[in-house]
């Protein structure tokens, strides 16, 4: 491996394990423990991407999650392409394949870079103005054909994979006493303190290794050992406790009410050859009694002209690459230090063999405690200076030094050659999660930062360390330890850590250090290419609040959510407006902290597990018969049973014919069933349904209609009285849960005086409907101990008996208009009983029929289907069910509403039958019914078609419809306007077949 950019030793990479990888097709080598970014830097690669708008060459700015520039696509094979990964977080493995993004045809020669030539066109508000007023750019034609496609091609980050995601994603709900977010010095100390007290602790950190900033320290010693060793020991201690869960590679990305925190754990992305069955990521949904936020701080770039050239990097990142990864990002560096981390970086780089040309401190009275050490190392320190220009096409080659003047302007001066610029603009506490938890932030003049102030009600949390402005290793350790103790209810003070070589000044500067000469750009938001000039333009154009400036310029709106740019942007706008920063405001921090894959959020909820699929006990038989199924709620119901060569129409016609002429069987198991039991069961049903139940004899059934309190039909079904105090209530398939919920509501809260209890029995029973003139012949050989003769077992009755040797409830009911039975057997017997009935049905030339035939057969009889003939605005009278209302009832749910003025007015829509003038024409359900021919647009409809079928029994089409004053229109002709012309229909009563009911009483 090329040794030029690797230090001679040290760091936490394993130099014995070489890994090969490719970037944009070129092969490189790195070490185990490297990130893609450190491995690229070790190979001298700085140019890793092109910027979003101007396609400027960009390098690696940071060493962490805040990285705005180094976004790459990692290709792990079919469907496993992950775009927009931060190279600073991608762990190196052998065989890793990474590609740069947002460039064409190649990173070095990007065609889109011509955007830079048009940059005046792309200034602040370009997108805003363009999208809000496309006519600015010419006609709509030009917009749709030219500008939008161009913009869409040029914009966007990475490409989404087009193949289905082949990976598996896990989910885990977890609870703990203390959730510590961030495993830097504060977080580790907090976890140690909480674990010492025996608490259940979860400690998570986004990095592969716990330790946070301590992993980047070289000279710091804690309690007499190097920081790095102290981390190892702390992690060993924590790992030894069974009450502690350590979650490296785990980003806390969302903080919700009542200490509910979402974490995304990366499980296999760091492995070259992961177990294909193992989950790729895991979503942790943690409910914590206490949360300790130890999320640290993020270093700010310094805003100077052309500050975006590859090779220009944050000081903290430079220290991390040198100290942790053993990588020298450059050979000759210039350091711009507005706080201690810049000076520390100069010392670290110098020690690692990088020539440090100069340290520039832009503060007029810059005075670091480390300046002396830097000078002692022979490095020139210039106070009150800044960078006024940079050079270099694909890598910085020189910077121009000037004196910092008033108002951020700088006079120009000497050019210093370098291949690496390190900037330490000061540190911004990471308050993202605190803010997500709805905590209030307050500006601290002292820290020059927004810091956690009031915790939101319902959250139990504390912040510790740099994220609340407590900087330096010693202070963070002490603060974290105290927070950990407080989180488990112990007195906060506990321990003072002895730390050497600590640095303490992190405040820095914010804002601009000059926009530079014409043609140069001082970038604030690197990912969205927002410059100082853009922000000033927004302020000039009248934007005063930062939320408006943000939307106008798109600053802070990229995938990094402005982690490195927000405070600089705020300072620049505040400066321009002449207001203090807190008056300009702060933008909202939103979940997720870093992008989260869709897979992690979906978890197991996809494919067959997306939703439960409910199947009946008779389902396997229907599948074996080749039935076609339809979804009814979560249920799969047999829709029709096509025989060889049959389409749906012919199958349904045959099924209907067979039921009317011989016999058919139908799986009605999905019907909702509720056992209503208790001495007041009849009174309860009396109060709920419109019908009377008090006088219903044991063994008899009644068709029940259920309204809501507003008087509208919400469910129906047959109700059988099994005993004086026991009813077998059936509901629609879709209404089962809703009706039970409603019944519980009335039983518990409105009628608590009634002694009645409800139990769902939907799944206790398999229900087999046998319908048709031969139905009795089918059942006769199978039943035992029950007389199913017409005299003893009339229509609308129920008996207990045995069928195929098992206890059954047999109903004599009909939803087809034919002689019919519904056999209820305990569900586990359903499959066998079904097959036994099937054998008998076959002997009588019968068939199995599905839900489509069921719909046709009931429509021929004018039986409604709740949800098809009703839509939540339909009363019993509207659909001709007024007869079902119990005589002399004083009250039932919805009764009072039925006499409200709107319910008794004329003009209500009523259920009627429609017969098309052309008997072959089947209407479309949902089509509108009108009076005249060719109604002009806007003509109000009289109503609509609710059901329409081909009726085999009548040899013509039939339809049901809700039509205004429908019953008075019987005998008249109306029209159904369709795209191919009006369809004339005759209004008739909604019962098409056997209006006297002779068939079903047979």
């Amino acid at each position, binding site marked *: 491996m090329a040794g030029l950019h690797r230090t001679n030793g040290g760091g936490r990479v394993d130099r014995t394990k070489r890994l090969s990888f490719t970037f944009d097709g070129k092969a490189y080598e790195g070490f185990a423990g490297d990130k893609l970014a450190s491995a690229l830097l070790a190979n001298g690669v700085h140019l890793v991407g092109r910027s979003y708008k101007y396609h400027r060459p960009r390098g690696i700015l940071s060493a962490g999650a805040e990285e705005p520039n180094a976004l790459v696509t990692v290709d792990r094979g079919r469907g496993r392409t992950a775009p927009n990964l931060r190279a600073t977080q991608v762990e190196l493995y052998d065989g890793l394949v990474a590609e740069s993004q947002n460039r064409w045809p190649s990173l070095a020669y990007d065609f889109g870079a011509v955007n830079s030539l048009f940059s005046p066109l792309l200034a602040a508000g370009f997108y805003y103005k363009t999208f809000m007023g496309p006519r600015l750019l010419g006609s709509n034609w030009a917009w749709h054909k030219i500008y939008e496609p161009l913009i869409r091609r040029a914009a966007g980050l990475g490409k989404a994979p087009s193949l289905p995601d082949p990976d598996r994603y896990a989910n885990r709900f977890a609870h703990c006493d203390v959730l510590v977010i961030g495993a830097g010095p504060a977080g580790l100390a907090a976890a140690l303190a909480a674990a010492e007290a025996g608490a259940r602790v979860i400690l998570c950190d986004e990095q592969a290794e716990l330790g946070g900033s301590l992993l980047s320290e070289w000279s710091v010693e804690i309690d007499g050992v190097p920081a790095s060793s102290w981390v190892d020991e702390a992690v060993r201690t924590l790992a030894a406790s069974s009450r502690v869960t350590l979650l490296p590679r785990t980003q806390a990305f969302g903080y919700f009410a009542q200490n509910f925190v979402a974490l995304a754990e990366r499980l296999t992305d760091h492995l070259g050859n992961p177990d294909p069955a193992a989950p790729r990521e895991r979503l942790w949904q943690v409910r914590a009694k206490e949360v300790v936020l130890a999320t640290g701080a993020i270093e700010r770039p310094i805003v100077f002209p052309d500050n975006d050239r590859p090779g220009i990097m944050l000081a903290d990142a430079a220290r991390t690459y040198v100290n942790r990864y053993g990588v020298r990002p450059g050979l000759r560096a210039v350091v711009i230090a507005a706080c201690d981390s810049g000076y520390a970086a100069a010392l670290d780089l110098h020690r690692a063999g990088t020539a440090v040309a100069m340290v520039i401190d832009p503060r007029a009275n810059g005075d670091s405690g480390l300046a002396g050490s830097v000078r002692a190392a022979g490095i020139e320190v210039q106070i009150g200076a800044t960078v006024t220009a940079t050079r270099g096409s694909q890598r910085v080659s020189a910077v121009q030094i000037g004196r910092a003047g008033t108002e951020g302007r700088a006079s120009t001066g000497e050019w210093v050659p370098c291949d690496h610029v390190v900037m330490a603009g000061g540190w911004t506490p990471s308050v993202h999660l605190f803010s997500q938890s709805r905590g209030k932030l307050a500006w601290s003049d002292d820290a020059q930062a927004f810091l956690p102030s009031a915790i939101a009600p319902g959250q139990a949390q504390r912040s510790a360390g740099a994220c609340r402005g407590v900087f330096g290793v010693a202070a963070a350790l002490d603060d974290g330890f105290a927070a950990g103790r407080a989180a488990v209810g112990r007195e906060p003070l506990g321990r003072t850590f002895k730390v050497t070589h600590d640095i303490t000044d992190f405040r820095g500067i914010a804002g601009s250090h000059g926009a530079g000469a014409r043609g140069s750009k001082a970038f604030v938001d690197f990912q969205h290419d927002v410059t100082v000039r853009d922000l000033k333009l927004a302020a000039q154009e009248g934007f005063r609040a930062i939320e408006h400036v943000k939307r106008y310029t798109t600053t802070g709106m990229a995938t990094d959510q402005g982690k490195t740019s927000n405070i600089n942007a705020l300072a620049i706008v505040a400066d321009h407006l002449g207001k203090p920063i807190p008056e300009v405001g702060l933008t909202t921090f939103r979940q997720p902290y870093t992008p989260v894959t869709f897979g992690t959020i979906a978890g*197991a909820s996809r494919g067959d597990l997306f939703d439960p699929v409910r199947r009946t006990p008779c389902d396997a038989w229907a599948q074996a018969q080749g039935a076609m199924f339809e979804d009814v709620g979560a249920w799969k119901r047999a829709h029709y049973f096509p025989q060889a060569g049959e389409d749906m129409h012919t199958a349904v016609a045959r099924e209907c014919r067979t039921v009317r002429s011989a016999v058919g069987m139908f799986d009605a198991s999905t019907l909702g069933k509720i056992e209503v039991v208790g001495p007041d069961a009849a009174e309860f049903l009396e109060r709920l349904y419109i019908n009377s139940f008090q006088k219903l004899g044991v063994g008899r059934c009644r068709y029940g209609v259920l309204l809501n309190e507003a008087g509208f039909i919400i469910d129906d079904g047959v109700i059988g009285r099994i005993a004086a105090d026991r009813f077998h209530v059936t509901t629609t398939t879709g209404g089962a849960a809703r009706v039970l919920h409603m019944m519980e509501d009335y039983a518990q809260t409105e009628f608590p005086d009634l002694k009645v209890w409800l139990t769902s029995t939907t799944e206790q029973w398999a229900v087999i409907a046998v319908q048709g003139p031969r139905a009795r012949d089918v059942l006769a050989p199978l039943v035992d101990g029950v007389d199913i003769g017409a005299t003893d077992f009339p229509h609308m009755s129920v008996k207990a008996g045995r069928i*195929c040797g098992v206890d059954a409830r047999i109903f004599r009911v009909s939803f087809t208009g034919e002689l019919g039975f519904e056999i209820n057997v305990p569900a586990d017997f359903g499959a066998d009983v079904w097959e036994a009935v099937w054998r008998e049905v076959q002997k009588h030339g019968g068939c199995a029929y599905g839900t489509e035939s069921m719909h046709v057969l009931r429509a021929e009889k004018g039986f409604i289907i709740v949800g098809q003939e009703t839509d939540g605005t339909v009363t019993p009278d509207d659909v001709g069910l007024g007869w079902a209302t119990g005589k002399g009832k004083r009250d039932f749910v919805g009764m009072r509403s039925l006499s409200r003025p709107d319910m008794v007015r004329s003009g209500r829509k009523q259920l009627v039958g429609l017969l098309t003038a052309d008997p072959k024409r089947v209407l479309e359900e949902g089509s509108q019914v009108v009076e005249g021919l060719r109604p002009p647009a806007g003509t109000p409809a009289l109503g609509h078609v609710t059901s329409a079928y081909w009726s085999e029994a009548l040899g013509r089409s039939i339809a049901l419809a809700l039509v205004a004053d429908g019953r008075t229109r019987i005998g008249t002709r109306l029209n159904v306007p369709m795209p191919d012309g009006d369809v004339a229909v005759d209004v008739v009563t909604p019962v098409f077949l056997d209006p006297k009911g002779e068939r079903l009483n047979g």
Partner: protein
Amino acid sequence: MADQIARRRSVLDGWALPSRAGLASLTNAGTAARFVYRGAPELVGDAFGVSLPTVPLRAHAQSGRAALWLGPDEWLLLSAEADGSTLAVALSSALNGKPAALVDISHRQVGLIVSGSSVEALLNAGCSLDLDMTTFPVGMCTRTLLAKAEIVLWRTAGDTFRIEVARSFAPYIVALLDEAMHGIA
């Protein structure tokens, strides 16, 4: 007369129930007799042989019978299948004329046994409750959700839970736990 006798077929018949060696396994609890009892607990008297717990979220189990508190007036009574008809007679006669409800739901749901050293992690793939022994001890039971299905969850031993789930949701629960097996370690 009926010459064909129907056999009982569980919805779990033919399912290979998942397990992960040393971590967790799923087994069929087998057929059972089940009743929902609703009403005042004292009306049952000694008819069930096991007292009905009145402390919320607790189950009493003894000699193959168990009474699970599901709500302040609702208990799930479990017993061996063979025991079912005698038990039904005994309970019905004890409750005869009393204001209470007894409903046979033997076939409404199925029982699954989940056990192993990682049983909590496995269930927590879809169950959002805290299953730590301190908060969900042996003998605790509750109706709750496992992902998108309602279940009754009952801890019968330190590393063992019984799930009762409605018949048509059982395949979903089995498939979900099968999937979740991949996510435990």
